[in-house]
């Protein structure tokens, strides 16, 4: 039992370390036989793992929807039938004609694309609604954010800003080009450093909470 737990803890960490070190080595010193030959193999393995995982995902999806149909869940079961029919149709087309087939292209262009565009269009409205909800100056920090927000709205987004005062445009552009860019750079550096360090800690086996195995 102890050996099994030890293996379940150590083996993934060892694989992570070897694979990670090989990829880092290949990035910094190209042409080394040990890394330049093994990195393409590792990439192929990643594709193979994904190849196994994808049918598992589809199977999970199909089983979930079959359960909904079997239970005749009110308001849902007929949508599940429709989804299974579409999965079967797309799979058939994919296997027989590939993704370049006429029916496949038409299904995507006339059925999937409009629905996906509708969802994307809704995001803007949701974002607008959420922005108005947080438009309250509860703290001095929030007040500065709101002033900056108003400047951008009046100077860049809403044309009425330029009519009220022509200076809104240049002022908003100044904020956008310098102040916000500086803020984005701070975020970029902070996130990158933290992500790199998390990667290093994962490679060294210090960060194992996600794969904890109970004794």
């Amino acid at each position, binding site marked *: 039992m102890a050996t099994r737990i030890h293996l379940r803890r150590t083996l993934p960490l060892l694989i992570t370390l070897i694979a990670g070190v090989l990829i880092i080595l290949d*990035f*910094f*010193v*190209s*042409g*080394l*036989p040990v890394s*330049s030959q093994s990195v393409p193999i590792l990439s192929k393995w*990643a594709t193979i*793992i*994904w190849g196994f*995982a*994808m049918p*598992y*995902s*589809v199977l*999970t*999806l199909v089983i*979930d929807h079959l359960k909904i149909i079997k239970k005749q869940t009110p308001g*849902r079961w007929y949508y599940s039938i429709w989804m299974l029919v579409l999965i079967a149709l797309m799979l058939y087309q994919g296997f027989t004609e590939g993704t370049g087939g006429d029916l496949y292209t038409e299904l995507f262009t006339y059925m*999937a694309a409009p*629905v*996906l565009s509708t*969802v*994307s269009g*809704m*995001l803007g409205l*949701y*974002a607008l*609604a*959420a*922005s108005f*909800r*947080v438009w309250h100056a509860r703290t001095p920090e929030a007040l500065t954010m709101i002033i900056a927000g108003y400047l951008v709205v009046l100077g860049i987004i809403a044309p009425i800003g330029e009519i009220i005062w022509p200076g809104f445009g240049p002022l908003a552009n100044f904020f956008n080009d310098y102040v916000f860019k500086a*803020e*984005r750079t701070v*975020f*970029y*550096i*902070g*996130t*990158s*450093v*933290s*992500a*790199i*360090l*998390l*990667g*290093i*800690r*994962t490679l*060294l086996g*210090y*960060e194992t*909470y*996600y794969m*904890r*195995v*109970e004794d």
Partner: protein
Amino acid sequence: MAIVPFWLQGRTASSIMTILLFLFTVYLTSQARKGKFKTHIRELPAYDAIEEGIGRATEMNRPVFWATGDKGTLFNELAPHVLTSFAGLRYISELCVKYGAKQIVCVGGTKGGGADLLPYVQAIIDEAYTAGGKPGETEGIVRYIASEGSAYGAGLQGTITRENPAAVMIIAPFGDNMIPPAEAAGRVGAISIGGGARYGGSMDHHYVAFCDYWMICDEYFTFGALLTHEPATEAGIAIGDYTKWVLIALTALGFLFLQLGMPFIKNFLSMG
């Protein structure tokens, strides 16, 4: 094939910094394990809100909702973000088992359809429920939604609207498609806790606008340290802070010396 070292590939600065970070991590972690280095990580309201949200869900007999991000996979540059979100999922699942709250975990939407994440998510849930003495009670928890991003976002919104969760947790590398579930969380009256750290902070402001609690930028990566309170993990967070101070100093000094006509820091950093 000829061997080309980093200094001939224009990667001198990044190589030196990576090696230094490796060495610094090993040194400070060993010091922390010996008890010679201690640090303090400030409290994060979003972290405390997780237990509060799960407690609320238990009292109201409503589920706890969690979703993988629509951007991260284990094969791209967002892999550290995915691992952090897995640590969060593990913690949330353990709390759900402890309090007896119903859990819904949605997967999908990433490059490759989120399929690569599904087995890991299932394994995390299985382990958490087995460790909590409830093996075999995981049926119906993990749901694969869709492979395409917008379809995934709409699916998450639909799931939240139908299942009426008391707590919605979207602590994962999301793009625009975190908006539909966050908006739905507000509509069903759920506590929403968001977290993400996409490079450039491109989506972090959405977490602030949409969610009740959030952890953004490098706060997101302190999640593992807050969960475990292990000295080694906490030391890792401190190393990040020290590195940022060094980078700030390099930037300030680089600017100063450049104005004085001595561009050696700029030249070093520009070596690729």
